[in-house]
């Protein structure tokens, strides 16, 4: 089973402290070494992003920076796991590192299974 973990945080959260970077490096190294994590990445600030939307049958484009400081996805990891619980634990470890090494940080991790052919079509 493959899961994507999306880590969300306020878009104005600013650069992470050095301690977090180091601890995340160690935690991710372990997750890759154990074969649990197979891909991961951090997303660049919202100011560099573009949103395409379809509303009322019209496609529109808005470039950053965006005015409101909302919670946005700041990083992701792809996990190859035996069970949903294993994916949750993989995500919990990433959150624990944030709790321990980024004082005041708030955010959430969404643990979502990635659709696979044998699991049938993605749910609507």
């Amino acid at each position, binding site marked *: 089973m493959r899961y994507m973990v999306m880590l969300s945080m306020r878009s104005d959260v600013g650069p992470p402290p050095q301690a977090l970077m180091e601890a995340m490096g160690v935690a991710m190294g372990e997750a*890759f*070494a*154990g074969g*649990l994590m197979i*891909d991961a990445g951090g997303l660049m600030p919202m100011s560099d992003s573009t949103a395409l939307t379809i509303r009322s049958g019209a496609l529109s484009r808005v470039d950053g920076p965006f005015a409101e400081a909302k919670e946005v996805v700041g990083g992701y990891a792809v996990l190859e796991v*035996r069970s949903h619980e*294993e994916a949750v*634990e993989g995500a919990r470890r990433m959150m624990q590192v944030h709790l321990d090494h980024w004082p005041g940080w708030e955010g959430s991790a969404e643990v979502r299974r990635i659709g696979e*052919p044998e699991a049938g079509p993605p749910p609507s």
Partner: protein
Amino acid sequence: MTPTPEAATDRAVVAVWQLESARVVSGLLRMTRDLALAEDLAQDALVAALETWPRDGVPANPGAWLMTVAKRRAVDTFRRAERHRQQVERLGHELTEESMDELVDHVDHVEDDVLRLMFLTCHPALTPESRAALTLRLVGGLTVEEIARGFLVKDTAVGQRISRAKRTLAESGAVLEMPVGAERTARLDDVMAVIYLVYNEGYAATSGEAWMRTDLCLEALRLARMLVALAPSDAEVHGLQALLELQASRFHARTSSSGEPVLLEDQDRARWDHLLVRRGLAALSRAESVAASTGQPVGVYTVQAAIAACHARARRAEDTDWARIAALYDLLSSAGDNPAVEVNRAVAHGRAHGSDAGLAVLDSVEPVGHLWHAVRGDLLSRAGRRTDAAAAFRTAASLTRNDAERSLLLHRATSG
């Protein structure tokens, strides 16, 4: 059985324990030098976690928590043994709580501990099946039921296999060791062979049971990834990882929606898992650069991975670099006597240099197995020799035990 909330928490605890199992068992093994005892103590730690975590939540560092509990149990066990026998020296080495703290806190050694455990579970004194079962149990942290499901055998059979293996290890005097030089190479080969066996057990499965067998492949893939982290300066372990990542990348394209096997050249390449392709190609390039920088010979897994990479790099089947594949099979052929390699070498030479070149390779080896005849049929068919081709496909069909494959071969016998 209806899942209760308790069962859901238990599953969460077991998932965490499985992730930590190899480290916990191998750390305990270093302390106790006794595989059965180490496994029992690890199980005790799991039981303690099942009692505590649902109430108090998963600890911030579950691995350290499990290790501390298991260590405490180990000390208790040794104290009991000491009281009963008043001769703790007999245990091989005296253990005090202080020395055990030292042993446990040597985090640098964790990788070596797990690698030593792998050397032990893949020990030459054991049969290949026992090595596979013991490795999945102690390194992978799988339950006996999970292993039995993967190998399509009864739980009791796996349980017996594992206890017999532990007895054999104890009787043969196998010890926890970190061999060096040629011995290390040989023992790493054994570990890789076990991982490859587990992988093939899943990969060779028929489509009907595919869902559970895929699990076995992924378990092998995970072990291969672990091994790379444990022995990164050994080129061939990167080659094994590359091979398994690349083969696994074709999983979903290997069977049609109706469950029929789909040949590599007919596969929809958009259905390949391109994340695994990328990881496989990266592992192959690591294998090649480690081999080049250390002067290690290029091993058979690396060569097979290089072949798989030729397919992975071709966007369409007709773009395949068959000349390179033929050369790689020549290399593989020179490494040992393997009928399956010769058959594939014939295919590659047929594609690269014409049907006659392929038939010449086939004729140079004994006609063993249905694949030899199937490939002969294919080469003859491409050479326009329809009647001979049909006869070869029929012979191949009569030799295969796989229903789906038989109907594919019979279809080719009639359609040319």
